[in-house]
């Protein structure tokens, strides 16, 4: 009989290992601490707005004076809320202090990624359409594909920006400062500053974002309400605002978001973007121009084209005539020498893709289940904003310029795609296999390239010392689609140039919006 001790010891060891087998398997995001305001930007109340006429169009009630009894009572209420704040609430106060505009942008990116799922087909081979009246039933409403996401981000950013311009206008009209300026016993949890605090910019952003995102994601009302309440309360826990700062801010933010929704979003022709019955006429129009070999869906079963009329949605920074004038010329047609030449390198990439080419394709893919290419550029912008420690209104300006340019790029690109109906490489040559998914819309031009060209143009203007980085990223994003074998090189090169021109219009606006 062999020694029995070892198996028993082994069993105990194994048991112990089972017991504490879990090092933490939850991924974590980087901590982004609050930073001090680098500038007060008093003139921001006069910056050019997008939908409102100007920053004084929407009124705000005058606040109680800082020596009024009502205000003194609010200070007492604030102090008791601060004292009662739990450690978790104090952490939340720090989190929201890390730039409220950027936090709401991230909430939007997360929602976009969670809703970026094409519907699965029905048994009979047709596809269900997300229903705004039943947003939580699969397929959930909306399907946050790149055009939808670009529009959602643009609407959100414009609502935040117009609301903050208005907020800044009223702040410096009333000049009621933060509570810690009137009561030295209040020690704020986030960096102090001299910015007038009525109305609260955080409450303005929370309310504007909440209302706008509820419009885009009607299935997320409870979540968005909870987030906005948390954002506003965080200002009390932080000692940065009194309740009347927050109430005035909430009312203002909400009003302005509803203006963006009613005056722009409900009138921008997005409602007709999924015009499937009109697709046949688009095909006929292309045929009449001599385009005989046209795109077809490669999905199994065949899926209706994605948003064939998104190209008709209203642009922010230029008019319809300009959009048409910017549209690229007819691409090389299947069968032509130039077209055949473009297939040669795709066949090569399909057979031998290097690890680095695969990595680049995957890095920029931003496909199903992700925040899409517009989201990727918002993420990059967020890094630059944090690096430069921009205040809320300058942050809102960055996102507004970037996202209106991105939506314009999406509109211009979708207009081009369905004007030329160019088939994907794998349709023309089924031996071309890909390292990324083939999206369900025509090839020319590449959406990634157009979005990236526009974004790089805007970010180069806003962050000049990152101009060469942004440009290099855009080039890489554009070529990633060629490495992935889902676009001809001319799709990406011409898309990148088209996007750059679209971006120039946003830059021109930025130069003239009063901020320089």
């Amino acid at each position: 009989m062999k020694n029995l001790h070892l198996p028993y010891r082994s069993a105990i060891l194994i048991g112990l290992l089972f017991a504490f087998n879990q090092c933490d398997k939850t991924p974590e995001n980087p901590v982004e601490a609050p930073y001090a305001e680098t500038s007060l930007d008093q003139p921001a109340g006069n910056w050019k707005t997008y939908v409102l006429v100007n920053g004084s169009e929407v009124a705000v009630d005058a606040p109680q004076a800082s020596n009024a009894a009502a205000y003194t009572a609010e200070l007492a209420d604030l102090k008791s809320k601060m004292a009662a704040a739990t450690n978790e609430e104090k952490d939340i106060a720090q989190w929201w202090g890390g730039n409220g505009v950027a936090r709401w942008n991230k909430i939007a990116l997360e929602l976009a990624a969670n809703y970026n799922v094409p519907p699965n087909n029905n048994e009979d081979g047709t596809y269900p359409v997300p229903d705004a009246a039943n947003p939580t039933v699969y397929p959930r409403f909306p399907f946050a594909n790149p055009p939808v996401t670009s529009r959602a981000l643009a609407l959100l950013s414009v609502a935040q920006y117009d609301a903050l311009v208005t907020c800044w206008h009223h702040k410096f009209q009333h000049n009621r400062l933060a509570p810690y300026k009137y009561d030295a016993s209040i020690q704020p949890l986030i960096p102090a500053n001299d910015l007038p605090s009525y109305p609260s910019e955080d409450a303005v952003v929370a309310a504007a974002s909440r209302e706008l995102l509820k419009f885009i994601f009607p299935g997320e009302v409870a979540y968005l309400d909870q987030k906005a309440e948390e954002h506003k309360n965080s200002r009390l826990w932080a000692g940065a605002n009194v309740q009347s700062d927050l109430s005035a801010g909430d009312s203002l933010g909400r009003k302005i978001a509803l203006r963006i929704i009613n005056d722009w979003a409900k009138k921008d022709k997005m409602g007709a973007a999924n015009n499937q019955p009109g697709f046949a006429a688009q095909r006929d129009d292309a045929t009449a121009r001599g385009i005989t070999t046209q795109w077809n869906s490669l999905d199994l079963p065949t899926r209706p084209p994605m948003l064939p009329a998104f190209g008709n949605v209203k642009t922010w920074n230029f008019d319809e005539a300009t959009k048409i004038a910017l549209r690229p010329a007819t691409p090389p047609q299947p069968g032509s020498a130039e077209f055949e030449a473009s297939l040669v390198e795709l066949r090569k990439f399909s057979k031998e893709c290097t690890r680095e080419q695969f990595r680049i394709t995957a890095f920029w893919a931003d496909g199903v289940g992700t925040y899409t290419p517009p989201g990727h550029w918002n993420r990059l912008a967020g890094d630059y904003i944090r690096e430069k420690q921009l205040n809320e209104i300058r942050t809102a300006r960055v996102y507004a310029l970037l996202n209106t340019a991105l939506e314009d790029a999406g509109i211009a690109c979708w207009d081009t795609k369905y004007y030329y109906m160019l088939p994907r490489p794998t349709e023309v040559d089924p031996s071309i296999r890909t390292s990324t998914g083939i999206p369900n819309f025509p090839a020319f031009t590449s959406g990634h390239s157009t979005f990236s060209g526009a974004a790089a143009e805007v970010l180069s203007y806003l962050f000049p010392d990152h101009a060469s980085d942004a440009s290099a990223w855009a080039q890489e994003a554009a070529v990633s689609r060629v490495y992935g074998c889902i676009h001809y090189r001319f799709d990406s090169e011409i898309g990148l140039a088209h996007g750059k021109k679209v971006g120039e219009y946003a830059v021109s606006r930025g130069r003239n919006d009063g901020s320089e």
Partner: protein
Amino acid sequence: MRNIYLSLLLLLSGTAFAQMPNDGLMMPQGQLCILGQYSNSAWKNYWQGETKRSNSNLGAVSTQSALLMGNYGITSNLNAMIGLPHVWTDASDSYLSGQKGVQDLVVFLKYQALEHAALGGKLKLQATGGLSSPVTNYPADFLPLSIGLHSKTASLRGVFNYTADFGLYLTAQAGHTWRSITKTDRDSYIFDNELILNNEMPVPNVFDYSVRLGFIKTRFQTEFWYDSFTGLTGDDIRYNEAPQPTNKMAAAQVGWFGKGFVTKRLGLIVTVSQVLSGRNVGESLTWTAGATYFLDVNKRAAESK
């Protein structure tokens, strides 16, 4: 004739699966067994979370591998094993490129703690420790077509075996595998509905167990087995999306194994298995065919002097 049969399915069809069907035998001291094995695993249906479905854009997803393995008796109670597979993947109806490459090097040390005659046969207790590491820089976040999860692993398992003198045997084993994070080429991903802004994906640790009932004689062996593994943490494949290395994968499968000795040294092995139920894995049907060759290293060393 003593031998050890080792079948190692490191990653099949998006499942991370370290299985050692083990007949409870040890290699005699100084003896080396070399195994070459081809494996083919395919599925059409898969579990999206706990919902079984198919995806017409994929067709049949297949994983093939060619495995080379060595097993050496350091002593008659301590064996060392090393193995390396080359893996190919494909999806029959998809335009996505299948992947191929050399996958993960795996090393095991097996210790027989106890051997005791009883009940008209022998009772044995063994413990096996293993380590694995990817050998090439293959992409992990391309499921279901990636050839592996590109995670380093460490495993520990206990094996109980009873073999009756007339040949019937029963083996039960249970094991735990720790898996390191894997890196994705992207710099963001969704985990459990939360947006994570980095490229490190945690891969769940795994608990597995199996039960084998078989018959062994000098020149042949056959067994039926049931095998189950479960990821201990992780999220589910989201509606209509691709799997991710962070997913909680689980599967229960049944299989059959047969082995016969063609010559004194050369054995042929065949296995067939089917996944019966699972979570975030394919409903795979797997078959393998292999050959084992037996060498007396000590005798050869003595002969060459």
